[in-house]
């Protein structure tokens, strides 16, 4: 496998808080990489830096060999990195179908003025994608009428509609009822593997990480404390103490 995303010596501090203090991280093409760690460790900051929302104070990020630091979010999307958000960013006055169709239209380049958004091609593709996410039942519902789990899925569906090569997801299951979590993860694994997309995701729930991730990176105080396959990392006593112990959402992996 080849390296798709490569971060070198990333540095960013907010005042005294070091969100990134010399981060080196490679993401392999096709893998699902989970980032875990305590709140405030800089996990979301990594997504924000990779997607152009924040600019690091030092270091470099390459996507497919091309430096992307300093590019606008729009340029980075065009290169093939899409993201989802911890708080889903949906167009609340539009339906689910319109939300996803707008992402499809955006991917197709210049937004046209004279043909309807819900023309056959866009509508069909959006509906098909919504179906893959198991959301056909709410396709015509307004985005502000959905529950949190559905909102999360629509948010991710919009990112997938951009046909990225890499998708970065910020806590895809946070705020979702425990009973729904695994169903969402199954859906995501199915859709993302099917689309052949590489995924980086920040997650607090270790069950989700165990089911979802090929590799896990542990973030601690702006550095990567550990990196490896989930079985190894999640059972590491140090990680259990520092990360999983702090985050009670750890479930079965939480130390007794």
């Amino acid at each position, binding site marked *: 496998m080849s390296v798709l995303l490569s971060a070198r010596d990333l540095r960013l501090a907010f005042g005294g808080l070091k969100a990134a203090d010399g981060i080196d991280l490679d993401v392999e093409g096709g893998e699902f990489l989970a980032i875990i760690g305590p709140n405030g460790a800089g996990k979301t900051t990594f997504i924000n830096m990779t*997607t152009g929302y924040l600019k690091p104070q030092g270091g470099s990020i390459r996507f497919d060999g091309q430096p992307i630091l300093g590019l*606008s*979010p*729009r340029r980075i*999307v*065009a290169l093939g990195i*899409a*993201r989802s958000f911890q708080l889903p*960013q*949906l*167009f*609340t*006055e*539009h339906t689910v179908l*319109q939300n996803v*169709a*707008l*992402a499809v*239209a*955006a*991917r197709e380049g210049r*937004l*046209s*003025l*004279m*043909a*309807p*958004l*819900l023309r056959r091609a*866009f509508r069909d593709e959006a509906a098909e994608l919504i179906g893959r996410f198991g959301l056909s039942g709410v396709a015509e519902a307004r985005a502000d009428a959905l529950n949190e789990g559905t909102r999360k899925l629509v948010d991710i569906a*919009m*990112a997938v509609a*951009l046909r990225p090569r890499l998708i970065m997801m910020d806590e895809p299951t946070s705020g979702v009822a425990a009973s729904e979590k695994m169903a969402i993860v199954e859906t995501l694994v199915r859709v993302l593997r099917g689309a052949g997309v590489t995924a980086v995701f920040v997650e607090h729930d270790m069950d989700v990480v165990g089911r979802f991730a090929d590799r896990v990176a542990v973030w601690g105080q702006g550095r990567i404390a550990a990196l490896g396959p989930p079985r190894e990392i999640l059972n590491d006593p140090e990680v259990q103490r520092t990360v999983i112990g702090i985050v009670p959402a750890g479930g079965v992996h939480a130390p007794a």
Partner: protein
Amino acid sequence: MSRRAETLLALAGAALVVGLAYAVPWLRFVLTIALAKGLAVLGILLLLRAGQVSFGHALYLALAAYAVAFGTAVVPEALLLVPAAGLLAGLVGLVIGLFVVRYREIFFGMLNLALSMVFYSVLEKFYAITHGADGIRLGPVTFLGLPLAGETAEWTVLGLALVLVLGFGALVRVALASPWGEALAGIKTRETRLDFMGVSPRRVLLIAYVASAVMAGCGGALIALTTRHVTPALAYWTTSGELVFIAILGGAGSVLGPFLGAAAYELTRVYAAALVANAWQAVLGIVLLCVIVFAPGGLWGLIARRRRAA
């Protein structure tokens, strides 16, 4: 409401305008002004879709009106003057738009206000060119080379207004349902998402802004042809406020709203001015308050609700 129903309503409305103008001659003037203002308000509606309010679109209205007034001395042909004035407004809108689309909400509104006030004071102060507060009269105007005067002129300008209104109304109706139009509405609810979809919100808004300037310009050109006398009051910020007022009064839910609102506004104004000459502005203010409090969807919202209930 379906496109078919809206088209039928628009055509019925146009027929009603012609019928009223025929039956009640003094209404011809009022209705033409209402259509002209409605056209400008249609542009305001585009910006409202993005959640932005401009308190300065009187700038484009007045700019085009003055352009027509000056233009009559050079080329008296109405069919050239109106598009030229609209184009000029669009060009100025492009230059100003590149600046103001970087701002949102209050700042967007106030910057537009400030720029329009600059234009207002230019009109007021450069007496040698603009005749200040006295304004300037239009020279003779022709239509397809035929001189326009009296009743013919009234009917011609009304017809021109109707054609422009139906044309722009149809264009805006189509554009609002396009990916661009939906992205424009997305600026109101979740602008950041657009960036992360590879769409530039500023560019989306800029298109709306330039279009709104063109429509305000065409409205202003029609007003100039109707009143045959332009004054700096056209550029004053209260005129801009009036446009936003009409947009809310009519309702932002349909392209028919602005024209419904403009007709209601002009008629209220005429009757209020006749009944309470000293307080017509207060009457309008009270009407606006009532609409906002009791019918936030505007007059169009009331109609749409009734239809849905039926």
